[in-house]
């Protein structure tokens, strides 16, 4: 591969890495994702974001910086903003979970929604870029002429190169792309009064663009360094994990993603009802079938905040609970049932307004019981979402921060009654971005995976508990929305 600086713009943090030609991280940094609140919701602080990236490159040890051949950018899908040709903004750069454009798709008929799914492979939802783009045009007040819709990762690439383009896996999260044709859909754009000219040319992850002379000077990089938009972070993770068809990629960040690669999209009514999201893979001809659980690692933040624990204390608590769980010392009957929808619900409802519920709290309920219940609830939610897919996973690959959470992993393996293969390598997504920018392939062994086996007795106990809790669980889901 080629020595690469990767930028991964996540929900809560921006990760920056320098990878060697051998794919080993030589340097890394992490910053809180800079966001602001405007009158309507949440937007990126682009000045701060570009500052973070520029300083990271500038601060690299000069000898290392001189080796850099590629800049590869990945990040959350579904964010975006209108960017003029001179790279000035015609709208704010809107976060993925901001629903300011919801009114633009609220009146779509059932038939219209069905048609959107058939064309784009996405269930109609205000997370996706289309409604945000419609909102942005409406609020640009005529000042959007020539502006184009860019994801935040694509904006960073434009800032570095002076050129605007869209990467296909990110484009397939806008709800404006004709999935099978791999081109912007005039029909779907027309449903919200937009023209496909609002969306830029498509350029796959393998095709980069040379950095602008100004950026080269500012960053201290060689002028022939090329910038690649690697794609949607979960899909880039699939590349980093060498994911094949039939394998489930379980990527765990602030949100939790479930991803299968498929030869063809699933556009039938069942998939639509399940609100599974089809998309384009970052490399090759595959399609992706994807579901996101909005509260993944974000549950940590919620627990930390509410219980007033430091990250270290929470981690120690989780470790102790894991140990007790392995020793059979957890009495499941006293564990509260936690529906961890702290930021909306996953498919098949995908209600942004859904909220979390903790039930079954008794006077003897402890902080540890709630922490255990939260992770048990997260794996119940994971299984519910997995059951929506028309695929039997022949392997489950886990990447991201959960690969260090033994309790979460073990509960998941036991509930599924199947082993998990867990990456030891921490930056699978970033290295996937490097591979895409280098036009290289990675295999799973490079992630130094380890197996988390299911235990028959624990699996029986956990599944029996889950079965007993099922009516209450279903009831909580209806309560929470």
């Amino acid at each position, binding site marked *: 591969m080629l020595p690469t600086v990767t930028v991964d713009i996540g929900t809560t943090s921006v990760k920056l890495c320098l990878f060697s030609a051998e794919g080993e991280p030589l340097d890394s940094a992490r910053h809180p994702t800079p966001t602001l609140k405007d009158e309507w919701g949440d937007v990126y602080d682009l000045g701060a974001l570009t500052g973070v990236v520029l300083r990271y490159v500038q601060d690299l040890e000069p000898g290392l910086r001189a080796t850099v051949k590629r800049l590869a950018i990945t990040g959350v899908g579904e964010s975006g903003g209108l960017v003029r040709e001179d790279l000035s903004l015609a709208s704010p750069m809107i976060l993925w979970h901001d629903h300011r454009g919801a009114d633009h798709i609220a009146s779509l008929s059932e038939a219209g929604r069905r048609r959107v799914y058939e064309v784009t492979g996405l269930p109609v939802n205000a997370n996706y870029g289309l409604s945000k783009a419609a909102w942005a045009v409406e609020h640009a007040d005529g000042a959007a002429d020539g502006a184009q819709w860019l994801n935040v990762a694509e904006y960073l690439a434009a800032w570095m190169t002076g050129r605007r383009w869209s990467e296909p896996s990110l484009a397939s999260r806008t709800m404006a792309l004709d999935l099978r044709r791999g081109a912007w859909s005039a029909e779907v754009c027309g449903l919200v009064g937009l023209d496909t000219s609002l969306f830029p040319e498509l350029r796959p992850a393998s095709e980069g663009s040379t950095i602008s002379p100004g950026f080269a000077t500012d960053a201290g990089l060689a002028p022939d360094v090329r910038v690649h938009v690697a794609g949607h972070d979960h899909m880039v993770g699939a590349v980093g994990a060498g994911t094949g068809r039939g394998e489930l990629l379980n990527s765990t960040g602030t949100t939790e993603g479930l991803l299968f690669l498929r030869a063809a999209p699933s556009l039938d009514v069942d998939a639509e009802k399940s609100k599974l999201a089809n998309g384009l893979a970052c490399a090759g001809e595959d399609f992706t079938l994807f579901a996101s659980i909005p509260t993944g690692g974000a549950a940590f933040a919620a627990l930390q905040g509410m219980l007033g624990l430091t990250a270290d204390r929470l981690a120690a608590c989780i470790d102790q609970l894991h140990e007790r769980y392995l020793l059979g010392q957890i009495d499941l009957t006293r564990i509260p049932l936690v529906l961890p929808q702290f930021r909306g619900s996953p498919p098949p409802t995908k209600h942004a307004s859904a909220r979390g519920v903790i039930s079954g*709290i008794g006077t003897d309920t402890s902080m540890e019981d709630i922490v255990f219940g939260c992770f048990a609830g997260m794996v119940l939610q994971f299984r519910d979402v997995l059951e929506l897919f028309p695929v039997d996973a022949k392997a489950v690959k886990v990447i991201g921060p959960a690969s260090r959470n033994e309790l979460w992993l073990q509960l998941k393996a036991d509930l599924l009654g199947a082993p998990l293969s867990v990456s030891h390598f921490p930056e699978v997504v970033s290295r996937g971005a490097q591979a895409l920018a280098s036009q290289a392939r990675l295999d799973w062994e490079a992630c130094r995976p380890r197996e988390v086996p299911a235990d028959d007795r624990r699996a029986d106990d956990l599944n029996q508990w889950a079965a007993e809790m099922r009516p209450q669980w279903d009831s909580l889901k209806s*309560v929470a929305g």
Partner: protein
Amino acid sequence: MTLVAGIDSSTQTCKVTVRDLATGVPVREGKASHPPQTVVDPEAWWDALLTAVRRAGGLDDVAALSVSGQQHTPIFLGPDGEVVCDSPLWNDTGSHPHMVALNDELGRDEWIRRTGLPLTLSDTVTKLRWLRDERPDSARRTAAVAIVHDWLTWRLMGFGPGNADLDELVTDRSEASGTGYWSGETGEYCPDLVEHALGHGAHLPRILKPLERAGVTGPGIPGVPEGIPVGVGSGDNAAAALALGLAEGDAVLSLGTSGVVYARSARPVHDYAGYVCSYADATGDHLPIVATLNAARNLDLGAALLGCTHAELSELALQAPPGADGLTLLPYFEGERTPDLPRARGSLLEASLSNFTRPNFARAVVEGTLASQVAMLDALRACDVRPGRLILIGGAAQSPAIRQILTQMVELPVAVPDLDEYVTKGAAMQAASALTGAFPDWPVEMIDLPSAPLEARIARQHEAGKAAMGYQEGASAGR
């Protein structure tokens, strides 16, 4: 200085307070813990009383005493005055199916018509059925049934195993009114209800009038002088109401182990909606009461989960806005009596990344606790008992958050009396009356809390939470 002693044998502890007869000012006190279980050997309560007496420095210089105690909880006595089995406490939820059975057999409204009680799992008559079904041998051996204060009074008068004159068992109207086999209209027991629940009749304590004397203390009781007058005694809420000088138009919100709302009324009530229990007070009037199982201990749990002190919990709660940004707690941690949800547990609703904070959680605990209590005021109003002032008492009344948030949840003026042990004070007033023939006129200092605009969203959130969880009030009462 003439001294009198008031004894409160409550759910969690036994407290003895010795007071100056002239002023009511406490001179000394002693406390002893009760077992935490909900089915308890009554000897533990007698032992705790003796321990509390000892810790109060003994009662040798005391001229009279009287006992108040947890309502409802029965003591099953054999013909020789022996305790035949452990007693299920009023808050033991094991008697829920027996309450259901009694309601099914006679009809829920019939119990209300005859006794003024929407039968709950707490009532003594429900415990009689529990005894019949769960401890049949003990039921057969049961010759008499007394409530905790009745039995402790009897023991203090020197009766018990070896000196078992069951005819000397006495009680008062307030205690009788919590049994589920007493009529507020007639002031008499309903023996057929005892027989119906227990399967046979039982001797019941004689009901004394408010200023009657129970008797005098017996010999050989450690720390208790022989031959001093013993007051009639009462249930704990009636004792507190007496000590507070409750007038018509006053309601009391007591936040202790249970949450209780009561008001003084000249007449008994019959709440066919199923919430208000028509108890009697210690003066000859009535004391309609609504109660929840979960109250002050909610704050214990909240503090434990947040890993903070009660003072910090209060500070945190006051940092959060009314409604806790939507975070809503239904505090049915031990099941609940009002509404009737014995198998429910606590639920935290509407949690999101943005509102799941320590201040909001603390506030949700306080609001949830108070929302259950405030809902009970509506139940009183529905019985045409319309309070014009709310008096806040109980351990949790000292919490600044409880005080401030309560004023945001009711449109009544709220007053907090000086910190005192009002149950033992009421008992001591009964002791005084046993000595002088009249209740003493002991003053009560009250602080009027500053009023605050009503924050209606708090009640709305809790009603919505209950509806979402299928806990609509009245939906399952008595079933």
